[in-house]
């Protein structure tokens, strides 16, 4: 097991290097350090002298990825790519182009993201599984048909529509929830309740359909027929056999969602004004703050790798037949 984990971590390093490189190339394909400086200095009375000074202060005065004027390893190390990327691997995210410490912001914002995303993922998963089980129970009936149609309708509607309607209805018309905003402490609850519920409703259709397919595949297997033949009640068959054996694909899917618990949701945090990491990322993209975008992509890919590793480890725990070596 330890060897397996070590090997996976080694692979992860290469993935991180690749992601880091890709982010860098994509960002600087559409931006130059001069552009970044100008954007940070504002639109009025900006001189080239000020732009040059800003680049020096923020480490953007070096060549992007190769310094032909340097000698030896400095050709590679005296570049923005190397200097910005290297410290990332020691989890030193540096300072944003706006000057603020990224590590501090990550620490401050992960709480609101978790508060929003953990209940959203948990409730979505629970509700979707329950709905999918009901559809499986009523498979090949009108209830299954209408339930599936409902799922398709729900998943066909944009999340923005759900958000805007919910904000309008529950915030503006019924005055039950804030339209957007966030306060810490006990007040935080009232701010995440509506986005959580909207998130659950929005994802219910697609998730339930997916889980229905997974459960149906299990429901058609011989051991399920055997269980019924033994005279087990349908709930016992569904919960005790079908669901337990469908856990592996469900876990794979839910495991992939776990990084979002930390990274937050770009759309939900942005529209509901929740100061989490998703909001942080979208603001950075808008402001073309490379330091933050770079850090968030790095953190995101690291979390994905960790989530998939945890999922793989969980396979062995859920299914004794799985052996990791």
């Amino acid at each position, binding site marked *: 097991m330890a060897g397996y984990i070590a090997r996976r971590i080694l692979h992860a390093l290469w993935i991180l290097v690749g992601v880091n490189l890709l982010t860098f190339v994509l960002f600087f394909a559409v931006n130059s350090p001069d552009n970044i400086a100008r954007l940070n200095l504002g639109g009025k009375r900006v001189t080239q002298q000020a732009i040059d000074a800003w680049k020096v202060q923020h480490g953007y005065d070096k060549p992007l990825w190769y310094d032909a004027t340097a000698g030896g390893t400095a050709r590679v190390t005296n570049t923005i790519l190397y200097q910005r990327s290297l410290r990332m691997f020691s989890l030193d995210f540096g300072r*944003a182009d706006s000057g603020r410490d990224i590590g501090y912001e990550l620490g401050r914002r992960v709480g609101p993201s978790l508060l929003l995303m953990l209940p959203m993922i948990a409730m979505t998963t629970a509700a979707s599984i329950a709905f999918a089980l009901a559809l499986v129970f009523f498979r090949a009936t009108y209830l299954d048909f209408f339930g599936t149609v409902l799922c398709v309708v729900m998943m066909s509607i944009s999340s923005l529509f759900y958000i805007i309607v919910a904000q309008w209805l529950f915030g503006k018309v019924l*005055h*039950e929830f804030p339209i957007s905003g*966030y306060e810490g402490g006990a*007040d935080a609850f009232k701010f995440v309740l509506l986005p959580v519920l909207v998130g659950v409703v929005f994802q219910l259709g697609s998730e339930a359909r997916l889980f229905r397919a997974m459960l149906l595949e299990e429901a058609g297997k011989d051991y399920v027929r055997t269980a019924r033949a033994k005279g087990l009640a349908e709930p016992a068959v569904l919960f005790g*056999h079908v669901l337990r054996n469908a856990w592996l694909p469900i876990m794979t899917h839910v495991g992939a969602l776990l990084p979002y618990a930390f990274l937050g949701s770009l759309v939900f945090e942005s529209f509901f004004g929740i100061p989490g990491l998703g909001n942080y990322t979208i603001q950075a993209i808008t402001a073309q703050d490379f330091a933050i975008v770079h850090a968030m992509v790095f953190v995101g890919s690291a979390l994905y790798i960790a989530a998939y590793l945890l999922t793989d480890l969980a396979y062995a725990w859920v299914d004794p037949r799985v052996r990791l070596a």
Partner: protein
Amino acid sequence: MHAAGRAPRPGCRPAIAGALALSWVLALCACDGVRDSPNATGAESRNVLYAAFDDRNPKYLDPTASYAADETPYVYLSYEPPYRFDYLKRPYVLAPRSAVKVVAPRYVGADGDDLPADAAPERIAESIYDIPIRHGILYAPHPAFARDARGNYLYHHLRTEEVAGKHRPRDFAEQGTRELVAADFVYAIRRLATTRIQSQALAVMEDYIIGMKEYAVHIAAIDQQLRAGLRPDADDLPFLDFRRYDDLPGAIALDDHTLRIRIKGKYPQFSYWLQMTFLSPVPWEADAFYAQPGMARNNLTLNFFPVGTGPFQVTDYVENRQITLDRNPNFHGEPYPCEGAPGDRESGLLADCGKTMPFVDRIVARLEKEITPLETKFLQGFYDIDDIWRVDRAVKFAVDAKNSEDVERLYRERGIRLPQTPDVSDWYIGFNWWDPVVGKGDTPEQQVRNRKLRQAISIAINWEEFVQVFENRKAGVAAMGPLPPGIFGYRDGLDGINRTVYDVVDGKPVRKSLEVARALMAEAGYPGGISSRTGRPLVLNYDYQRTLTPELKSEVDWVAKQFAKVGVQLEIRATDYNRFQDKMNNGTEQVFWWGWKADYPDAENFLFLLYGPGSRAATHGNGQNESNYVNPEYDRLYERFRYLEDGPEKQALIDQMVRILHEDAPWSWGFFPLAYNGYHDWVFNGKPAPLVMDKLEYLRLDPQLRATEVARWNRPVWWPLLLLAGAVALAVAPAVIAWRRRERMTAARTLVSGT
């Protein structure tokens, strides 16, 4: 596969459902007060003012660097430059702030002799401003000033580990203060030369303050020595103590309360710079404190936590979300003004005459990017004013109220006021003077043809229609020239009409007909929009500074239609801001959309936008003449005009310059926006003032009235939720019935098969 697990006991399901329902009810009950409030519980009854800001958080609160309009409200509330603009009087006039009075400069000739106030500008070698600073002004509490019993600074020799975990000045146990002295202004002026942060004022100040250019070179060299061996982008840099480098003769402290500034020649507009953020006092202790290791890494810099003497101080800064300013307990207090513009008394704006400001205890500014949630929250009473600095967001509120009786009634019933005033800015479509088709032209004949083309397009673009069509975003009045109303030099009525674009009919301006524009097109060599030289349609490139949203697309499409009226095809080149800036710096744009917001209310701040030597492309991005317009006659007049005080001679020169611009048409003059702000009826003393950035100091609240009104307007309605729950139950019921029936059928079948 696994052995069959135990199915949930039927009795558990109601229990689980009950627990969920109970938690739901508890959750809702836990939210006391107004349930849809975006503020903390009970916030409405506190003396806290809520305002929004848009787009993103301000970047620079350091007065040396702060310049953008979205930054300055916080800086002006935290610092006290020598002067300010009077909040109520119009046209804008300077009033003393940390200075005792607004002083007139003393002029000195090349031989050092004093010159009279009306001396010819060319005789004036130097203008000297001796500014008396008020006594007894104290800085807001800050650890930078904290000392022990023996007078030693407590926090000036910190190690990195001692700063760990501290992210706000109030995280330090001890706070201190001291009196403002003239040396703090000297320190601030010297600090403009810093290479640690970019001051957009430096380029201007180098031209005027005696010795500033040399001082900047000296400081750059000193800083290089201090940085020796350090990475250029190192977080911790040694303290650059400007007290030690005193070779700036243009700014000295004559005594603790007299500041002397010497500028080259005559520059009447310098008084306006004395109300800008750049001239705010900076205490050396703050610079020393923030220069310590670990401070910058913990966001402890002047950029996020200013140290000033103003009525408020920034106490919390959450990036891209919220900035909190608390009342400065050491603030000396200022009387609310007793004089204003005509009509202010009737509007109740002088009711607080002589009362001590500020009136509110705290200001909370929140990011509110989209206009729709902002409008909704404002209507719900959760924002007291619409925006902390912008004066165009409430335009939509006003238009909505105008277009709908229901909305208008709602605003009326809720006592919301939406006063308006002319803004000191303009928007226009510019022609690049470097362009061979719409620019100056190479030969005299080409110059005439190009001018006629610009004139034809200027006639075709119907700005009156534009402000009508896009009034919810662009309320304003069509412009006759570069100077907006309210600025000295602006001509109203017949005298101000742009005769190139308008005819005068019954004493009123009427845009010239399209026939006139088409005739000009023909004379320009493009009859019907077809080049008589090549026989091909004239296609112009329209550079736009943003990628197009649906809203912006409708505006750009409108512009294209205006060009099409004279047969010109407009190729839209909408790019992001950076690409657009590159084009402008390189002078490769052709026709472009642009705007300008004045720094101060003087014609010079508008007419310099067309001064030849300030050409943006020619100065590689350093100038503000975006269209790269050059006309030697205009430049000659400008050089005379800029030294003049407001008066007949200045007016005559402005008239001449504007006539040249009308004829040359380097811009299609666009429109002057109107400034709106929204105020609730519990907010007093609100007046839109686009140039006054410390206006929140003047606002007074009635929190009790707010709490009552907000509670009344936001009573939660629960029955639809119950209805929704009932509908869900009804939808689920068939499934439950079917489930039970199937369970029973299975049992029956089992029973039958057993017998």
